[in-house]
């Protein structure tokens, strides 16, 4: 690729990203009332999105080879347990992550 072609490639990636981030705000301007259906989506989507993001993080975990997803499963259980116990986002994330690091570096 020439330098110009590289710049165009990066610019197109940036443009596509900007479109996906700005589009909802451009289509539904604050001056006009947002359609009821979109308001509903705004409320119903987040819980679904977080479910999707959890799976997205785990998408490359293989259940049939290597450690069979066991470290991930155990670390998620630990994260959830700490969170239900102490209700401190930071503590749950730190605890779960350290536990996962121990598992993948020393146990599995």
């Amino acid at each position, binding site marked *: 690729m020439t330098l110009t072609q590289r710049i165009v490639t990066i610019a197109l990636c940036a443009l*596509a990203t900007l479109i996906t981030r700005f589009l909802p705000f451009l289509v539904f301007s604050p001056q006009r009332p947002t359609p009821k259906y979109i308001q509903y989506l705004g409320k119903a989507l987040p819980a679904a999105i977080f479910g999707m993001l959890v799976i997205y993080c*785990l998408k490359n975990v293989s259940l049939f080879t290597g450690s069979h997803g066991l470290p991930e499963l155990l670390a998620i259980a630990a994260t959830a347990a700490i969170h239900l116990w102490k209700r401190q986002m930071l503590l749950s994330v730190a605890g779960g992550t350290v536990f996962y690091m121990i598992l993948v570096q020393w146990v599995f």
Partner: protein
Amino acid sequence: MSGQKGKIRRALTAAFPHTIPILAGFLVLGMSYGVYARTSGFSFWVPMTMAVAIFGGSLEFVAVSMLLAPFAPVQTFLAALMIQARHLFYGISMLERYKGMGWKKLYLIYALCDETFSINYAVRAPEGVDEGWFMFFVSLLDQSYWLAGTALGAALGGVIPFSTEGLDFAMTALFVVIFLDQWQKESRHWTALIGLGSALACLTAFGPDDFLIPTMVCILALLTLLRGPIERGLDGQ
């Protein structure tokens, strides 16, 4: 201290602790991205430019391989739209929260990555802290972590003195925690289950590289079909 300065500092102090999981995750992911770009033969400035211009981790990784392949503008643009399409959902969810943010709104929308969306959606600024500045600093801190991680990786080019294996689990743990909080906030769990179920089903059917778009279509279809009962559940909270 003047009122405005105090307001800004309070927002920064309140925002920082919420971004620590992202600090850990982004330093590691950013570093591996920087290393990956350098070992793919690019100069320090290529990953840095992309970190500012694109600011979307998964697309930046893919863009490195795009830059190594023959020039294909249409294909590049379409692939980028597909990879980034989930941001449409974040925008729709943040329409209300980002209302009336003035000039900050432009930056807030530009910097709306997965992790920033999660914090800005799930966490409310504490009492007495300006909501706009709080969300602004969450976004700015997150992006600066990504830039710092990328710069470190691109500068070191692969020599990291200790094992960070598994540290990027911080990102997964963050989403798990927010998912749990969201779960417990709802009396019925339809939407959370729709998200989990659609993603799992589409991951099984389409594989790890192509499952996001089908997942989004499934989520939209199910939320639309089940609007009546779900909306009654949402109102009942």
